[in-house]
């Protein structure tokens, strides 16, 4: 447009040149100035346009960079997502490891968990003196209910089949176990007496190597088998691995004696448990300590040394005191254990009722004994055998005739020769281990009572008749038991 105006002005100047004269010269100058101005304007505008173009180019470049970065990020994300997807697919298709599965299953089950263990014993019992042969059955499930990792409930139900009737049920154990820390635990309720090793650790059918209990823990027990109260217990390693010490202290209803006779007499049977304590205002107090002197790596085997005591008033102000020492030794296929215990019972109107009991037993598992040249079947049978021997005895001043029962039951052969003031028993056993907790046990009991002591009899009278026991005939019994721990 500007060029058109300038051309038009020049044309006018040329066309009117002859007419204008000197006046034309000044006009020409003005036109030149205007042309220069126009050129200058054009230069400025060009410069501004170039600047604008430069700015736009920069912006385009920035946008291109941003676009490139976005593309890179997008590719990276796509790659990561693909990898994660592949990982997940692999995890889903792969089987979980046993520990992963176990953890997941435990999470699924929740913290409140329970399980059932226990045992069952089916016996055949023969006694020569009473000419009895019978089958017997006892079933003892243990219900364990875990509330948290510091609280466990335990309940044992005992069901047996007594002579001539339907099943009998009892609840020998029902406790709450509260774990306070690594070294202390409270055990409250009705529990196996923590006195000695037998009641608490050896009494289950499949744990006891023999069918019967040793005499001091049998029908003429010196200590109540169960008690009702509160225990504080725990264990600690005091030296190298395997060198442990453990303790149990308890307060309980304590002992009481069978109320079936008109008045307390020497030799009276101790009650299995003192459920509701009406016999005395005093409590029973007990303590048990055990130490394991050998380290695991010493090569000397595992030795346990223990000591126990139980004290309390059994009737009004009359004391009952019991103490005992015990040992257990395990080395390879050999196991040995034994106990000695004493009981003192203060009597209201007579001499004290003192009793002693002991047992020692030995067993040897034949699984390590080589039998060259024997067929595999024979070797397998032989290696499952465990021969055993046990000697036990009790000393007391008298036996109460009214309490004598020769009815056999699981764990008792029914021999009358046991019901004497000085019973002695040699038990020979042969166990055949079908599985670690399933055993077929065979036992021959040689009852060899010593003479001495008295027989106390009421026979319906309020006052007892006391006669010397004299010699008691020997006896032989045979028991065969299938014991299953589950």
């Amino acid at each position, binding site marked *: 447009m500007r060029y058109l105006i300038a051309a038009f002005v020049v044309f006018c100047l040329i066309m009117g040149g002859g007419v204008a004269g000197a006046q034309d010269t000044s006009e020409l100058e003005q036109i030149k100035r205007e042309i220069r101005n126009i050129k200058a304007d054009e230069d400025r505008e060009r410069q501004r346009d170039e600047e604008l173009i430069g700015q736009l180019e920069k912006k385009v470049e920035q946008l291109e960079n941003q676009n490139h970065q976005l593309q890179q990020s997008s590719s990276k994300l796509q790659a990561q997502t693909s990898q994660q997807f592949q990982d997940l697919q692999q995890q889903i298709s792969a089987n979980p490891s*046993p520990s992963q599965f176990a953890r997941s299953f*435990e999470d699924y089950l929740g913290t409140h968990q329970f*399980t059932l263990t226990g045992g069952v014993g089916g016996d055949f019992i023969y006694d020569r003196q009473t000419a009895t042969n019978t089958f017997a059955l006892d079933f003892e499930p243990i219900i364990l209910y875990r509330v948290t990792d510091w609280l*466990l409930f335990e309940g044992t139900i005992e069901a047996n089949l007594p002579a001539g009737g339907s099943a009998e049920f009892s609840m020998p154990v029902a406790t709450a176990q509260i*774990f306070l820390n690594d070294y202390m635990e409270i055990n409250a309720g009705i529990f196996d007496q923590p006195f000695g090793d037998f009641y608490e*650790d050896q009494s289950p059918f499949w*744990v006891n190597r023999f069918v019967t209990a040793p005499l001091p823990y049998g029908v003429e027990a010196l200590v109540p088998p169960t008690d009702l109260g509160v225990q504080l217990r725990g264990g600690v390693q005091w030296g190298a691995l395997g060198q*442990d010490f453990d303790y149990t202290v308890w307060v309980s209803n304590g002992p009481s004696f069978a109320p079936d006779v008109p008045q307390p007499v020497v030799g009276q049977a101790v009650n299995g448990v003192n459920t509701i304590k009406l016999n005395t205002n005093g409590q029973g107090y007990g303590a048990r300590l055990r130490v394991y002197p050998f380290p695991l790596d010493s090569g000397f085997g595992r030795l346990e040394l223990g000591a126990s005591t139980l004290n309390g008033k059994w009737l009004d102000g009359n004391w009952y005191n019991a103490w005992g020492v015990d040992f*257990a030794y395990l080395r390879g296929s050999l196991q040995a254990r034994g106990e000695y215990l004493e009981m003192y019972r203060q009597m209201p109107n007579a001499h004290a009722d003192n009793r002693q009991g002991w047992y020692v037993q030995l067993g040897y598992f034949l699984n390590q004994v080589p039998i060259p040249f024997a067929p595999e079947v024979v070797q397998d049978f032989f290696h499952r055998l465990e021969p055993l021997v046990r000697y036990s005895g009790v000393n007391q001043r008298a036996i109460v005739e009214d309490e004598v029962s020769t009815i056999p039951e699981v764990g008792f052969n029914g021999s009358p020769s046991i019901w004497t003031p000085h019973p002695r028993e040699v038990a020979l056993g042969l166990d055949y281990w079908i599985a670690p907790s399933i055993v077929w046990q065979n036992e021959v009991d040689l009852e060899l009572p010593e003479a001495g002591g008295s027989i106390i009899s009421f026979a319906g009278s309020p006052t007892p008749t006391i006669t010397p026991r004299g010699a008691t005939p020997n006896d032989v019994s045979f028991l065969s038991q299938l014991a299953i721990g589950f």
Partner: protein
Amino acid sequence: MKRTIIVLLLAITALGVCRSGLAEETSKAEQRRLFREGARLWPVYCSQCHNARPGSEFAPYQWNIIMMHMRTQANLPAKDAQAVLEYLKASR
């Protein structure tokens, strides 16, 4: 300032990841140690009273319960009971 904060955050995150990885490694190492110790204790401690029962007889959750019971029954030291439990659960 913003850059410093980002660097600090990244450093803290990296440290956290390293520490968590380290804890996991320690936990696994501890489990392995307990397993080895349990393998030594299991035949001795259990056989003190009865035959040692293999881990396959019960599910791991059952062993949790049974070992609480056995810790009471045998007055086992807590750490030894834990080692035997690890062994029984892992040796199924």
